[in-house]
């Protein structure tokens, strides 16, 4: 896979596709890194009234620059209100009043379950990952979950080594049986394309390819027999406005504007090794 497709990087395509998945007026529980970039991009483009909520307790933040950590001072300064961490989980996330949660992980399986805990056995892991953070309850309680992660064979697995956050469990009835109120992962956005749960089986199937990517390339990076929908789409390429806006966003403390070769949000936040996935790379 080349790092550039046309005049944009695959990570830029992923960020822009994620931004497009957010609708104006929604309340979005934002992880740091690409979800934060995508959500702030959406707010600058088509969703000026998007409500951004960070698990550090900041509600309706409108940062001028992208935060570096999930608890940056500029999130508090630009927030409508800041509440305690227990309150953000108990009063805001748990009752199901958040529309969208962004998640990622070191492993995602065909049923949308996510692992951010360990690769291998829990007690003697091959790789110890950061752990849960807010993810299990984000996955349980947001009305919808959108998963954003790079499409790699080691990450897109038949079955996760450890269920940190439940997607569809073992099948379509599991969320109901477990008492999970949100709909689960309605979309997975990668640097290659987009997946959605099959309406019957809830298995993740390929619904869109980013421009210039082949089905074979996606299958080569997917650890299960990937089903492709009959009406497979090609993702609309980034518009000039989308790219310009994304590249014009600054990160706090940085004098550089983003530029495709080295400075994309995705490169920074996704490409930091196994176990520190998008949305999980900060507390």
């Amino acid at each position, binding site marked *: 896979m080349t790092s550039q497709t046309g005049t944009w990087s695959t990570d830029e395509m992923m960020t822009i596709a994620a931004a497009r998945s957010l609708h104006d007026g929604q309340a979005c529980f934002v992880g*740091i*890194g690409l979800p934060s970039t995508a959500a702030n991009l959406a707010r600058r483009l088509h969703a000026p009234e998007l409500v951004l909520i960070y*698990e*550090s*307790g*900041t509600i309706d933040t409108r940062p001028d620059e992208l935060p*570096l*950590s*999930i*608890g*940056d*001072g500029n*999130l*508090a300064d630009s927030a409508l*209100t*800041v509440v*305690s*961490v*227990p309150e953000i*989980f*108990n009063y805001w*996330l*748990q009752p199901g009043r958040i529309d969208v949660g962004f998640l990622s992980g070191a492993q995602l399986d065909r049923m949308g379950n996510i692992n951010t*805990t360990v690769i291998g056995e*829990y007690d003697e892991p091959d790789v*110890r990952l*950061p*752990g*849960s*953070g*807010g*993810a*299990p*309850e984000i996955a*349980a*309680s947001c009305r919808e979950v959108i998963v954003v992660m790079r499409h790699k064979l080691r990450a897109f697995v038949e079955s996760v080594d*450890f*269920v*940190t*956050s*439940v997607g569809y*469990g073992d099948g379509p009835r*599991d*969320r109901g049986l*477990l*008492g*999970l*109120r949100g709909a689960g992962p309605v979309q997975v956005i990668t640097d290659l394309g987009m997946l959605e749960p099959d309406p019957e089986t809830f298995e993740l199937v390929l619904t869109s390819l980013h421009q210039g990517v082949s089905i074979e390339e996606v299958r080569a990076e997917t650890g299960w027999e990937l089903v492709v929908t009959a009406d497979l789409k090609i993702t609309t390429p980034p518009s000039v406005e989308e790219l310009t806006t994304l590249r014009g966003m600054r990160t706090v*403390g940085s004098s550089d504007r983003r530029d495709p070769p080295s400075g994309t949000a995705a490169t920074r*936040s996704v490409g*930091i*090794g196994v*176990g*520190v996935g998008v949305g*999980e*790379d*900060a*507390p």
Partner: protein
Amino acid sequence: MAKIVSLPQAVSELVRDNDTVALEGFTHLIPFAAGHEIIRQGRRGLTLVRMTPDLVYDQLIGAGCASKLVFSWGGNPGVGSLHRMRDALATGWPVPLEIEEHSHAGMANRYVAGASGLPFAVLRGYAGTDLPEHTASISSVTCPFTGEELAAVSAVNPDVTIVHAQRADRSGNVQLWGITGVQKEAVLAARRAIVTVEELVDELTPVPGAVVLPTWVLDAVAVAPGGAAPSYAHGYYHRDNTAYREWDAISRDREAFTRWLKSVKEAGA
């Protein structure tokens, strides 16, 4: 009533070997100076409790202060892993480390239960995940009204909680603002509490969004300017992101870490 004392005195009098210790601060106001003082005083066998262990616990673990870590997200935010924590888990260096692992919602509620004088808290959490089978402090309860089953987590009541705040008055009342995280709960859940502050002031003029901790729920207040660096103190100084990135190289290598440790110990001499 809090006594206004030096940080070495506060740690010396209030943090004991084998204590359960919580240093809290969610990204903001992380009590690094207090952590370093615990390292200098050579505490051993601590159970370290913290939602986001961060560099401060990587340092305490690497220094051999801890025998157990209770947490919900263990990484170097935006950078990568906590290598001292990983090393202790994988190889037992410098001492073996046990873990007790939760989600953020679970840990936050454990502090809430602790602050509320309750033995447990109820939440919608963990359902369908693999965490409960590895963590004894996760269980379930049945709602006596609806019959619904919900998650239960046991209370956390640290022997000592340490937090950092912007300021205190001369009676030892403490004020912190910005992202205030779980600090109030962590302090109220503890048997003993230490607060380090940027400065002492004559009067705590009200600040929007501020949390106030009355002196009578605290044991010691110590002035430690810059005591949250390399994290930040809202209104005082910014997060030192370079230091967070540089920690990755230091912590990856036992020798580099050992040199760092020596420098911390000498800083207190």
